[in-house]
């Protein structure tokens, strides 16, 4: 181990963080202790170091006392390291000669034992002081950022983000798994609380995406692989075979009319299976792109090769239909990525007592959205499966949400969506409506007013959970089924029974089934319930732990359309701020090789996950390419000669920290 080349002059600053730290740790005593440590010139404690006066104090001390290193004992470095680095830099100290001792999240907030807290805080401060004495002056490296953005997911979040970026003049590639963009919003009929028609506000945006010269739209496609790093990601996208060539198709749909199947026979997933489609189909009338897709599981030609191929004739000289089309890979480079992969609706079959899947007239909220939609299976009429109009309809809130057996979180949108459905169903059918809720949550602009409106309209509100649902034949009309719903009314404190024709389950928003796969693809984290984790819940809500990867929409957590659009705008703005600059500065924590120590053993080369190390055959030593190195330090730990080293995490610094945290208490 080597000693620092010159005497070091360290300033130690202990933050009170109001009472967050000072309430548990004797900050004065901690500063006294710090002052006793080798190399420490001065130690102070202050109420809020992250405040302007706090930072000004550090800057002044650096100037007056000639400090060359700073230790800040405060909150997590993941929160304010950048703040204090900036303060030090402003006063002429290299920003990488600042070290944070985390005495808030790791100490003050996790124990009530003040003595033990003080001991731990003392150890962390000593570790930081010992370590910072060995810090070297470093320069940030910067890399060029490709001015192109990948947006994954073509729901309203992805659409909004893509359009914002495209309008700012950036090139965008929008990748959507389904044959059309639009996502869940395209399935809805009206949006609360204004009752705007969802299609009326969404479809112009969908068309704008298709028409925008800066947007490349890849539908029916999935991101297969992402390599590279912030500013320079290499993306591979798998383009599934539609069997209809997008570039040749004009969207006339004559092929669909001409299909050998005269009537639609296959459940249309977009309509939640309530309507049927042909083997060649467009998921919904306003689909973008308006290009049909052929289902290989249903198409006679694709299954047996023995169809008359009437569709081919209908397409005639356009020749857009291509039964031999196979999926292919497309590769391109982008500077940043916005993940907007959305959510999926909770499957209520698992809550057996609601009877969904067993009783024909128990529906999910999404199914009823399709029934209400003029372009849906019933052309906007709310009809039961036997074609009759329901007279008594129940809506159940919190299906799969706020339930420790399924999802303990609140899905945020279901109260308002339930109110909206109650209103629309009542308006269209004149039925008597019953709304079974646990708590009514209507925090939002115009939300409470909408709740009052629905109350005034005569919807019956019953506060309580639905305990059981049974189905029986109507005595008068045996073809008609009646659902008997038992509810524990917590306001009347008794179990009530309702005979209904239709029951609507307001199902939870849950992470998409592929969320785990997507998370790994982009190197993100998930929070406990499986939604993607933002970098900071308040200060970096659209960033992720992976630099250059941003989040928008319900993939980050349940949210409604206004919040999704707002977040998508924020993600686009953050992305723009990053790529517009043209270059991005990176943490200089890369590894390097001391040629004089390297024996050329090649141990490190296969360990590097980024192929950043090669062997200089002439010198017979390993060489690390600084631009490819991401600073994990795996090679450093493995080097048998001690030739590999990592900036900001040198062996010396870490050994000093280990000694520091152990030797003073």
């Amino acid at each position, binding site marked *: *181990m080597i000693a620092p080349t010159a005497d070091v002059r360290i300033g130690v600053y202990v933050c009170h963080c109001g009472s967050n730290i000072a309430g548990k740790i004797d900050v004065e005593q901690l500063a006294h202790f710090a002052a006793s440590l080798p190399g420490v010139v001065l130690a102070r404690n202050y109420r809020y170091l992250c405040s302007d006066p706090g930072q000004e104090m550090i800057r002044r001390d650096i100037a007056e006392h000639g400090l060359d290193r700073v230790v800040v004992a405060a909150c997590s470095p993941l929160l304010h390291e950048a703040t204090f680095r900036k303060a030090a830099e402003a006063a002429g100290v290299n920003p990488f000669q600042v070290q944070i001792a985390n005495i808030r999240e790791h100490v003050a907030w996790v124990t009530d034992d003040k003595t033990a807290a003080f001991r731990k805080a003392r*150890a962390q401060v000593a570790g930081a002081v010992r370590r910072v004495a060995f810090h070297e002056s470093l320069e940030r490296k910067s890399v060029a950022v490709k001015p192109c953005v990948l947006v994954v997911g073509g729901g309203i979040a992805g659409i909004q983000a893509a359009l914002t970026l495209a309008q700012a003049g950036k090139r965008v590639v929008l990748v959507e798994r389904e044959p059309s963009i639009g996502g869940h919003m395209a399935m809805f009929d009206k949006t609360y609380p204004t009752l705007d028609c969802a299609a009326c506000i969404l479809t112009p945006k969908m068309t704008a995406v298709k028409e925008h010269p800066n947007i490349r739209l890849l539908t029916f496609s999935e991101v297969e692989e992402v390599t590279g790093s912030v500013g320079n990601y290499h993306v591979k996208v798998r383009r599934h075979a539609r069997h209809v060539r997008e570039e040749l198709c004009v969207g006339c749909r004559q092929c669909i009319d001409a299909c050998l199947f005269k009537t639609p026979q296959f459940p249309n997933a977009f309509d939640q299976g309530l309507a049927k489609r042909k083997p060649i189909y467009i998921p919904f009338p306003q689909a973008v792109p308006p290009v049909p897709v052929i289902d290989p599981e249903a198409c006679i030609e694709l299954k047996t090769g023995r169809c008359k191929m009437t569709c081919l004739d209908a397409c005639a000289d356009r020749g857009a239909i291509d039964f031999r089309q196979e999926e292919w890979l497309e590769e391109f480079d982008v500077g940043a990525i916005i993940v907007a992969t959305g959510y999926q609706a909770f499957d209520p079959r698992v809550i057996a007592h609601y009877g969904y899947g067993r009783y024909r007239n128990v529906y999910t909220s999404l199914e009823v959205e399709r029934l209400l939609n003029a372009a849906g299976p019933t052309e906007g009429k709310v009809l039961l499966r036997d074609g009759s109009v329901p007279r008594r309809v129940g809506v159940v809130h919190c299906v799969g949400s706020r339930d420790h057996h399924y999802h303990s979180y609140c899905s945020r949108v279901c109260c308002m969506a339930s109110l909206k459905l109650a209103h629309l169903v009542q308006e269209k059918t004149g039925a008597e409506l019953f709304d079974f809720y646990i708590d009514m949550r209507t925090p939002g602009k115009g939300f409470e007013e909408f709740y009052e409106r629905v109350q005034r309209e005569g919807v019956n509100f019953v506060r309580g959970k639905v305990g059981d649902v049974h189905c029986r034949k109507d005595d008068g009309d045996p073809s008609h089924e009646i659902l008997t719903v038992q509810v524990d009314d917590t306001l009347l404190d008794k179990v009530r029974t309702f005979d209904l024709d239709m029951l609507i389950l307001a199902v939870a928003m849950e992470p998409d089934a592929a969320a785990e796969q997507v998370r790994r693809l982009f190197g993100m984290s998930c929070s406990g319930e499986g939604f993607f984790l933002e970098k900071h819940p308040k200060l970096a809500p659209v960033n992720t*732990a992976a630099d250059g990867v941003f989040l928008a929409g319900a993939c980050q957590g349940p949210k409604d359309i206004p919040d999704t659009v707002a977040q998508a705008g924020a993600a686009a703005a953050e992305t723009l701020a990053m790529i517009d600059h043209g270059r991005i500065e990176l943490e200089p924590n890369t590894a390097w090789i001391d040629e004089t120590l390297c024996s050329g053993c090649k141990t490190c080369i296969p360990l590097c996950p980024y192929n950043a190390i090669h062997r200089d055959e002439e010198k017979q030593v390993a060489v690390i390419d600084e631009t490819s190195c991401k600073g994990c330090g*795996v090679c450093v730990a*493995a080097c048998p000669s001690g030739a590999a080293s990592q900036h900001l995490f040198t062996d010396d610094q870490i050994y000093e920290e280990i*000694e520091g945290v152990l*030797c003073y208490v």
Partner: protein
Amino acid sequence: MSDPDIAGPDGFEPRIVAFFCNWCTYTASDLAGTARMRYAPNTRVVRLMCSGRLDPQFVLAAFRQGADGVLIGGCHPGDCHYQEGNTKCLRRFELLRRLVDQMGIEPERLRLEWISASEGDKLRDATNAMVATLRRLGPLHLEPVPTPPAKSKTEHFVPEPAGTYPVMLADE
């Protein structure tokens, strides 16, 4: 100790050096704090960018300097921010555990946990479990006794008078 379940009767407070990776376990540790979870404050956290940076000698150095236990925290397998640094850590850990055993250090004093950024509760539980184990095992006595910090390489540090603050001796 605040938690009676993990408090030792003899007042022995084990010291654990905790090597946490920046992306998962360190973040989980932050989360445990933000969520105000309570756990034994016996860890001394050393942040690494990746558990793959953990040189086995760091662990030996920690024991040598008087740690009663060493806790290593990394991302779950398959979740490593650097693709597979954690599996490299696991390989080293498996060898190191045997080495430590041969040196006369109980292998339970060395622990590896995969704790993701959202698992503050797991961080809490792993820490408490380890502290309980170390209380049972008692202090680790390695011969010769750990040396105090006033060694040759820091001799040239002459602490300057620090304003009004009294200078405390290192072994106080």
